[in-house]
């Protein structure tokens, strides 16, 4: 079955404000696809367009090659899990799960069979007669999943459904969601501002900012090869060093970083000399000592022990603050605030992107 979703040059405007700029994007059938971006970047608007709560101002939405223009929300093969779950508090758990089937005129016996099977899938057998208010946060979460799956959607839309859960439960639900997606083969479209969620679960991630797609790629590519300054600074931690391009050739650019001297990093496409750019080095790309190709002297400001790793915060000679990530066993007594450090990195661990890094 074709469960792909195609946003065909879709645009969404609210009066003067453009919530989603022209977007052409094909989400493959059976894919776990995430939209990642800060709040207000238009990702929920995209879900609303796919689910039919909003009609795009221009362009269209296709689900499995079927145009969705004019198809009301209740006739679309999509199912949504809301941020606040939106379970029906006046119905029992089973009635919640069976609601979509009841609406479709499925017989009571058949409905019961399906809801029992789904309760088993989400490991809540025998909770059918409970009230929604009797469930814990994680259980409600699973009922919301079961309710959405009951109608056998082609596409499951998830609007930050894990944001209300505590850390442990959230990590557990990530695995479960992924598992359910694998079992059912349904296309999952997941919306989040939490990059950890997007990176761990997704086949592909679309990073969005201010209604625009920044980059669509698999998590590893997104992390290693960010194409825009926004992606570089939004996805994962990154040290952004403002600079000017001196020359660029063969996949590398040499830049002038003021009193940090001239540095170099990888580039995707060549950048004209003297264009202002940003050199990004990940905290794990910076090393202690001077073995790397480029050396930076710094003053240690703070040491944070985070279990398996250490994060050092240091300021460079131009007062810029950078983060360095080390393995926990690299810790030594001499690491105290105020001590001098020598940092270094190699050019393949740095990336140069034209434009200035915006604060995220």
């Amino acid at each position: 079955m074709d469960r792909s979703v195609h946003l065909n040059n879709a645009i969404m405007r609210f009066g003067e404000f453009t919530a989603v700029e022209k977007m052409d994007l094909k989400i493959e059938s059976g894919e776990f696809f995430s939209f990642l971006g800060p709040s207000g970047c238009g990702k929920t608007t995209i879900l609303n367009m796919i689910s039919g709560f909003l009609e795009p101002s221009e362009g269209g939405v296709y689900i499995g090659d079927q145009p969705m223009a004019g198809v009301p929300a209740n006739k679309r093969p999509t199912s949504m899990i809301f941020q606040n779950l939106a379970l029906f508090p006046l119905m029992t758990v089973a009635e919640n799960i069976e609601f979509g089937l009841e609406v479709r005129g499925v017989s009571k016996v058949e409905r019961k069979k399906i809801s029992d099977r789904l309760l088993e899938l989400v490991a809540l057998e025998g909770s059918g007669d409970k009230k929604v208010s009797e469930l814990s946060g994680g259980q409600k979460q699973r009922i919301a999943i079961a309710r959405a799956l009951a109608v056998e959607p082609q596409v499951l839309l998830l609007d930050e459904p894990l944001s209300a859960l505590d850390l442990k439960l959230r990590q557990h639900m990530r695995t479960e969601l992924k598992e359910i997606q694998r079992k059912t083969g349904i296309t999952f479209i997941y919306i989040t501002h939490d990059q950890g969620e997007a990176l761990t679960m997704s086949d592909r991630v679309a990073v969005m900012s201010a209604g625009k797609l920044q980059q669509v790629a698999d998590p590893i590519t997104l992390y290693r090869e960010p194409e825009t300054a926004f992606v570089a600074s939004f996805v994962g931690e990154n040290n952004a060093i403002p600079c000017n391009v001196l020359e660029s050739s063969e996949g590398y650019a040499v830049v002038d970083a003021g009193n940090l001297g001239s540095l170099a990093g990888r580039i995707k496409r060549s950048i004209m000399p003297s264009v202002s750019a940003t050199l990004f080095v990940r905290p794990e790309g910076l090393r202690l000592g001077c073995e790397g190709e480029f050396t930076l002297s710094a003053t240690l400001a703070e040491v944070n022990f985070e279990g398996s790793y250490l994060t050092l915060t240091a300021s460079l000679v131009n007062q810029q603050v950078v983060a360095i990530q080390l393995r926990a066993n690299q810790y030594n007594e001499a690491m105290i605030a105020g001590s001098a450090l020598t940092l270094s990195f190699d050019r393949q661990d740095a990336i140069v992107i034209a434009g200035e890094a915006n604060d995220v």
Partner: protein
Amino acid sequence: MFNQLKQRFGSPLSVSIVALIAVWLIGLVILPQLIMVNYSLKPNLLPAEIGGIKDQYTLSNYATLFSNTIHLSIFFKTIWSSVLVTFLTLIVSYPLAFYLAKVATPRQAALCLLLLIIPFWINEILRTFSWYIILAYKGPLNALLLELGLINRPVRFLSGDGGVLIGMVYAYILFMIFPIYNAIESLDSNQVKAARNLGASWLRTHYRVVIPHSKPGIATGCIMTFMLAAGSYAVPALLGSPGSRWFTQIIYNWFFEGGDWNQGAAYAFLLLIICIGFIALVMKVFKVGLGDIAR
């Protein structure tokens, strides 16, 4: 409770607050009602006979209603018509309340509420008279319908119950809209979206999600409308025809035309008791508790 009051306001002020409440409650609510109960249980006597052998408690005033078939039929007609008014008001108010609470932008909602409230700044009698004019045989409504070609001769809106029903729906619409509006507004909009998303038609979304949630508001609105309708005097007096007399008019007649306050008081209490009983029954049928309404 009095000690709490004393701690907050001191003795003199607390005593005056309690005294004022007592005067209000006893003097303005309980005593007049007791006097009316007393009236209703005594026969209508000449001044000379008061205190005499005929001045004894009796239920005969209450019995009168059940022996007078005309009054009895008007009584039940009043109850039935009030049910009809309540139902019609609900039909008109629910979509409007839903629109105000969930569909309209804040500006639209504010404008709409203002338009709803402004007419209520005008005296009820005047409002009712304006309906009298609108619905008249040669009034603007008939003229409009004739002009549009929807009817080919004027309709006598005011000769049956039509005028009374229209006038009452209009008079009590706010009492219905506000409780329902409050109830629907407290509904999480995602609930409606979730129902739609799971395939529910608009009708079913309302039937399964919005109405169950707003049931207390609907109950409150219906009770208020029903009580006001059953106890209404101005609307049926102005817009009613001889065939659509309201029970309140009979009570009025006993008091001010028959001069029989005892009989009038008995009729008034019968209306009150039946109305309360009726509401209790309806609440039981629709499984609404008093607590739901106070919410």
